[in-house]
């Protein structure tokens, strides 16, 4: 029997976001799940579904479906490890909503946890040593492409070449995002930033500086999606629109290899919601690097082609602007927990729980998740009103 209510996000739980080594994903996940259940006013016994999102790559401690057993949950009707890279968080919500609508589950936890910061090494070092020596990745690594920054730097150079953008645009993204972080107690970087500070920061892979890169943390986020009436105090956040796009760009001439094709995910989500881009009050995007914010603003049709840099430099995306983007500081200044970063912030904003960074009257949010090298897109339109 289907649930009585439209499925909605009814619980949100975040661990503290740590910039130092410590914690393992399973323990962080259990902590976030407990927090999300408490937020929803539910207990473990109310849960009949668990969706798990782990970091990519084969790490011995990565999260998996064993979390159900290790985390002390009871019998479940839905249990899956969802994997479309960084797009997974938004896709898990889609999966949970569809399962609840189909009567396959009533109350589903979606959780992501990661602990890339290890004793004796930086996260950059962890990533530099990952990837193996086989296949295209092995060839790239033998060519000095270590970690993901050089790859996104190539993307940035290509994006600049076709859009006319330049490093001032990257600076504007970093400064705008930091301004939002100042109002978010969960953000890990809350020191004011101006252009001078940005251009003084260390170059990692030109044109990307360290302040163009996400801040990895050890931490976890869990959400509860339910079609039941729940006792939590926060407003229900409905999933009015959902979309995915997996453009098969080819690494050959003459098309662009690095971007393009993601717009269909947003178009589909808006069509399902019966809304247009002008209805969006807040935009929460997956921003592992500043250039991705610029790219997605254009690719998702939120600004005119070639205008992203100009729009961000105008202050429109910053606090007080008319196109609020990554209102918690994003992954750049908030915390990098992959697709959970934009998703969690959208829920906070729609609940009106944003405190100093609250966008007044925010009732409709776009959540954009990307995976791989901007190869996978999963979008949500979250809204205080249920679907029709």
């Amino acid at each position, binding site marked *: 029997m289907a649930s009585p209510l439209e499925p909605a996000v009814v619980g949100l739980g975040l661990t503290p976001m740590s910039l130092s080594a410590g914690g393992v994903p399973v323990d962080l996940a259990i902590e976030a799940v407990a927090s999300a259940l408490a937020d929803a006013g539910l207990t473990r016994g109310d849960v009949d579904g668990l969706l798990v999102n782990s970091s990519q790559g084969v790490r011995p401690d990565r999260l998996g479906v064993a979390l159900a057993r290790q985390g002390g949950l009871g019998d479940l009707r839905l249990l899956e490890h969802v994997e479309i890279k960084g797009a997974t968080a938004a896709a898990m919500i889609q999966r949970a909503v569809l399962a609840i609508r189909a009567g396959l589950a009533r109350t589903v936890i979606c959780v992501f946890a990661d602990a890339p910061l290890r004793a004796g090494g930086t996260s950059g070092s962890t990533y530099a*040593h990952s990837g193996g020596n086989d*296949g295209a990745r092995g060839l790239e*690594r*033998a*060519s*000095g492409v270590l970690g993901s920054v050089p790859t996104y730097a*190539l993307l940035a150079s290509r994006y600049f*070449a*076709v*859009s006319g953008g330049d490093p001032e645009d990257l600076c504007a993204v970093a400064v705008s995002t930091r301004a939002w972080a100042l109002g978010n107690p969960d953000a890990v970087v809350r020191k004011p930033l101006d252009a001078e500070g940005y251009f003084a920061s260390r170059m990692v892979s030109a044109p990307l500086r360290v302040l163009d890169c996400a801040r990895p943390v050890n931490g976890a986020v869990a959400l509860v999606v339910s079609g039941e009436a729940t006792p939590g105090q926060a407003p229900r956040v409905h999933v009015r629109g959902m979309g995915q796009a997996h453009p098969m760009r080819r690494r050959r001439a003459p098309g662009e290899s690095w971007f393009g094709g993601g717009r269909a995910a947003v178009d589909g989500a808006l069509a399902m919601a019966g809304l247009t881009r002008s209805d969006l009050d807040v935009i929460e995007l997956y921003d592992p690097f500043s250039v991705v914010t610029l790219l997605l603003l254009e690719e998702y049709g939120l600004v005119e082609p070639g205008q992203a840099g100009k729009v961000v430099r105008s202050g429109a995306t910053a606090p007080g602007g008319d196109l609020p983007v990554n209102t918690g500081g994003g992954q750049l200044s908030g915390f990098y927990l992959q697709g959970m970063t934009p998703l969690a912030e959208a829920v906070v904003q729609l609940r009106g729980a944003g405190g100093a960074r609250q966008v007044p009257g925010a009732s409709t949010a776009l959540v954009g998740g990307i995976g791989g090298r901007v190869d996978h897109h999963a979008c949500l339109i979250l809204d205080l009103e249920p679907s029709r």
Partner: protein
Amino acid sequence: MSPNTASPASPAEAASPAAVTTAQAQVQAEDWLVDAALAPLADGSLAPLYAGAAAGELTLPFCAACGLALELEQRACDGCGATDIHWRPVERAGSVHAVTLVHRREPGLVRVTEPYPVLDIELASGHRLIMTTLTAAGSAPVIGRPVTIGFRSVGGVAVPAASLDPAGADAAPGSPTTSGTITAPDPSAAGLPAAAHTSSEPEVSP
């Protein structure tokens, strides 16, 4: 000694048989950029590429049925669906499609003390391949610049690398290369050159 501080050999020296032998031994011993620990798996999924490279050929995958240039890890043609893949030598020439100068140098894996270029090269065959330069280069070439393809040796495995000097195309794997790509490290080269904006590629429509 760091490659970036080495005095570039003059072309005349590089052409002499004695210099060839000496330089060849050095190249076989160590790559200019990365530690041998980053040697790719020569008999793995890209075995045809590495076998070709060892013989001085740039060998890349095509659809055996329709001839479409395929990605390195593609196992079925996106044009016609055929699963027969034919690896064959291609012209060792292309142009810069995207470029970065990498400043972060992971200790133990990266041998140089100065930033190094990473290029996405669009080959004459249509394939796009990420590589570094044949020898140390302190600045990054602009998008659209023509390159020829030679080979570096990483832990004894030949891997494609871009030469900014046309003579580089004639280099056999592990052979010495001309010094044309060596320039003094230039801190001002950290940002992308303005010329990177003058791409001949069409505007992408989001």
